[in-house]
């Protein structure tokens, strides 16, 4: 019964979304305030309905209702409760329901907090948001309905994919969705502004927090996925340039660009057309990502044929929304004139350079991801584009962006001079000193390690210097007390930029200095890698709730001191008939000791692989810092005080630079 009510609520939400698309749009066109006012209650009702629908599906999973096809395919009574709940979105249908839930919740949030928007803009934003919803409701109801019952319910389910039965991966999709769907808000604002033909500082101010929130969720989602890959896949890789990873990385890059260009719109009323384009592209790439993952088209052209209906649906959604928005953009963009003018050396120019680098680096990822498809279709060549291409083509953009960050963030708005860069000179010297020092310490290895260390210092110390220069002059005690009173947005910026530095250092250090040792060990044997020695004490069979594991017990010494016991596992999930590995990891600040148990060897013993992974945790630590920076920035006081309430043109008066 509850399941049927959930199904019905979803259909109702579909109907409400249709009304929310049409009525406010017509109202905004004709300035009928009554029609425009439909948008807010509709957005809230829609969110409540989808939330109920989602709760109903969750209820079916929690109670293991095996009359529901989706529950049978993705659950099992023995599965721990946590994974019964996360199993709701661990499949195509449920994850789409989560997608529309988040879409509706974002729409409702805009309705609740949008009181200060112009009536017409608010109505149109909610209308566009609902239009995206309509497309996805139709997609769910017509091709991917999660509420389909079985005539003959089986006795038990087929279990969730074991890879998904892990805390890191269980919460990876919701964060990614919060990011993707958050970008739909930026998209709705962009399309609404294009329809209105007006983009001003207030618009920039409205779009920024949504984009920031979306970007911060994407950061967490991507970091969770990467961290999971690191400890779960058995060789400690953290990024594979796989199409589905790239699908989440492209919107992240564009969102980062949008975040920065919206600042220019808000502060200086320039780069308006470009910012609108980025907002469209950011959501466009979210849809491209959905298409790539859902259709399987990139895995192989032939996989597309397995489920063409879903693939074509998403392609149509992608075409209608991105194509339609770009068409509207082509017609309307010339109307948007910049008010603020800026010099060649200025904060604005630095942000243009940032945008250019981020956008082109996103293009690198995009072209590398779709090239196998293009080559097969257009040139009849079956080829692969793997990590070596991305490493070679993407890394230069990371380095260029990292070099730019501390300099750009010190530049004054409008018109700067090279003098503004004086505070980074000590940072530059320090970074070069670190470069030389690290270079001298390592022998015969790649340049990546020293370069990463130097860039890390450059970004982290550069962020600190950026904060210090904002405290002005005078006695240090005054400056330090001013430091604590700086706007949260300044702190957020510094923390996020420092986080980027930490991540770059972590990636470079791990890539350059990793050590690995593989040996076949009998019980009692030892192996040594670098300054770490492990002894295989035992190999046991252990029964888990819904799996059987082979667990090795490895006593571990570092520089002759015992640092504890590592317990790498190999698990078999009998219901899903799938093996997984759980690495045994000793986490440390400067290194992880990472052990994996392999297969039993023909000549006796077990294949044991031990890695020393220097500074591995810094990769995700940096990502946490970036997300934290976004969060701190979101709590800035000026987002809480009404954007439109103070004065209509929120930006500074347009003063020509000449």
């Amino acid at each position, binding site marked *: 019964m509850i399941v049927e009510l959930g199904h019905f609520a979803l259909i109702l939400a579909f109907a409400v979304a249709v009304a929310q698309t049409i009525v406010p749009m017509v109202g905004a066109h004709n300035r009928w305030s009554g029609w425009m006012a439909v948008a807010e209650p509709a957005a809230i009702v829609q969110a409540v309905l989808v939330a109920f629908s989602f709760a109903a599906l969750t209820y079916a999973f929690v109670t293991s209702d095996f009359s529901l096809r989706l529950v049978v395919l993705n659950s099992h009574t023995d599965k721990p409760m946590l994974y019964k709940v996360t199993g709701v979105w*661990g499949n195509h249908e449920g994850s789409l329901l989560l997608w529309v839930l988040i879409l509706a919740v974002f729409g409702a949030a805009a309705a609740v907090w949008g009181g200060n928007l112009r009536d017409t803009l608010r109505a149109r934003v909610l209308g566009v948001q609902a239009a995206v919803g309509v497309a996805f409701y139709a997609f769910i109801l017509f091709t991917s309905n999660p509420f389909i019952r079985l005539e003959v319910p089986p006795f038990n389910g087929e279990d969730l994919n074991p*890879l998904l039965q892990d805390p890191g*991966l269980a919460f*990876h*999709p919701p964060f990614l*969705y919060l990011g*993707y769907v958050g970008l739909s808000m930026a998209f709705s604002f962009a399309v609404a502004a294009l329809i209105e033909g007006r983009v001003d500082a207030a618009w920039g101010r409205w779009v920024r927090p949504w984009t920031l929130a979306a970007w911060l969720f994407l950061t967490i*989602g*991507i970091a*969770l*996925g990467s961290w*999971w890959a690191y400890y*779960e*896949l*058995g*060789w400690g890789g953290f990024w*594979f340039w*796989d*199409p*589905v*990873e790239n*699908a*989440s990385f492209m919107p992240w890059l564009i969102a980062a660009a949008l975040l920065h260009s919206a600042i220019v719109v808000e502060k200086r009323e320039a780069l308006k057309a470009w910012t609108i384009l980025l907002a469209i592209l950011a959501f466009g790439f979210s849809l491209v990502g*959905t298409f790539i993952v859902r259709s399987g088209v990139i895995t192989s052209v032939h996989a597309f044929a397995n489920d063409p209906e879903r693939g074509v649906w998403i392609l149509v959604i992608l075409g209608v929304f991105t194509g339609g928005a770009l068409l509207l953009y082509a017609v309307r963009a010339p109307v948007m*004139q*910049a008010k603020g*003018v*800026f010099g*060649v050396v200025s904060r604005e120019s630095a942000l*243009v350079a940032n945008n*250019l680098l981020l956008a*082109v680096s996103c*293009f*690198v990822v995009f*072209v590398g991801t779709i090239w196998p498809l293009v*080559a097969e279709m*257009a*040139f009849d060549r*079956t080829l*692969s*584009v*793997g*990590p070596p*291409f991305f490493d070679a*083509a993407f890394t230069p953009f990371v380095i260029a962006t990292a070099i730019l960050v501390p300099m750009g963030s010190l530049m004054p708005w409008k018109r700067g001079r090279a003098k503004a860069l004086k505070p980074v000179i000590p940072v530059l010297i320090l970074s070069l000193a670190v470069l030389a020092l690290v270079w001298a310490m390592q022998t015969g290895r790649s340049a990546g390690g020293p370069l990463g260390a130097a860039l890390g210092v450059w970004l982290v110390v550069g962020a600190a210097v950026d904060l210090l220069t904002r405290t002005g002059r005078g006695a240090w005690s005054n400056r330090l007390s001013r430091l604590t009173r700086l706007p949260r947005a300044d702190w957020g910026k510094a923390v996020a930029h420092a986080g980027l530095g930490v991540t770059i250092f972590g990636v470079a250090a791990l890539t350059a200095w990793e050590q690995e040792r593989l*040996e*076949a060990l009998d019980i009692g044997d030892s192996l040594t890698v670098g300054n770490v020695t492990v002894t295989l004490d035992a190999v046991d069979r252990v029964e888990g709730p819904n799996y059987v594991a082979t667990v090795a017990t490895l006593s571990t010494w570092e520089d002759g001191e015992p640092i504890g016991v590592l317990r790498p596992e190999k698990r078999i999930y009998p219901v899903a008939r799938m*093996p*997984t*590995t759980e690495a045994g990891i000793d986490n440390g600040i400067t290194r992880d000791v990472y052990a*994996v*148990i*392999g*297969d039993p*060897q*023909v000549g006796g013993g077990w*294949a044991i692989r031990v890695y020393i992974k220097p500074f591995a945790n810094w990769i995700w630590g940096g990502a946490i810092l970036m997300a934290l920076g976004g969060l701190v920035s979101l709590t800035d006081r000026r987002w809480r005080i009404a954007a439109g309430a103070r004065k209509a043109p929120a930006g500074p008066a*347009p003063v020509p*630079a*000449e």
Partner: protein
Amino acid sequence: MRGLVLALLLAAVPAAAVEPDEVLDDPVLEERARDLSKGLRCLVCRNESIDESSAGIARDLRLLVRERLVAGDTDAEVIDFVVDRYGEYVLLNPTTDGANLILWIAPLALLALGMGVAGVHITRQRPVPDAGLDAVEEARLRELTEDRGP
């Protein structure tokens, strides 16, 4: 979208990769074999190199690479040998010949184009006269200024 999940549904048969019995005695040759393996694709996996994969064909290819190295082939000869048999699909690093030039050059072209457009835009900006306030804003302004009293 679901991040790595789907990627790994097919690919992730975990553990293994290089097995102890495959390792060459000569550490220099072994090092070269590992480097080469990282650039060769496991043909039945999804986006995994033969160095990472535990699939049977990956093991066969690893053994083949080591066999060629022991026989005295250079790195390039080993790669050519494998590509001859398995096609360029096996290369994780795409070649730069023919149409693949587009892949390598397109990002640089876009960067150059972007720099050009941005440069022109920045150096040729003209301030536009302020369009002033529209009727609604005028009304709001009047309302606000009238509130102030005399």
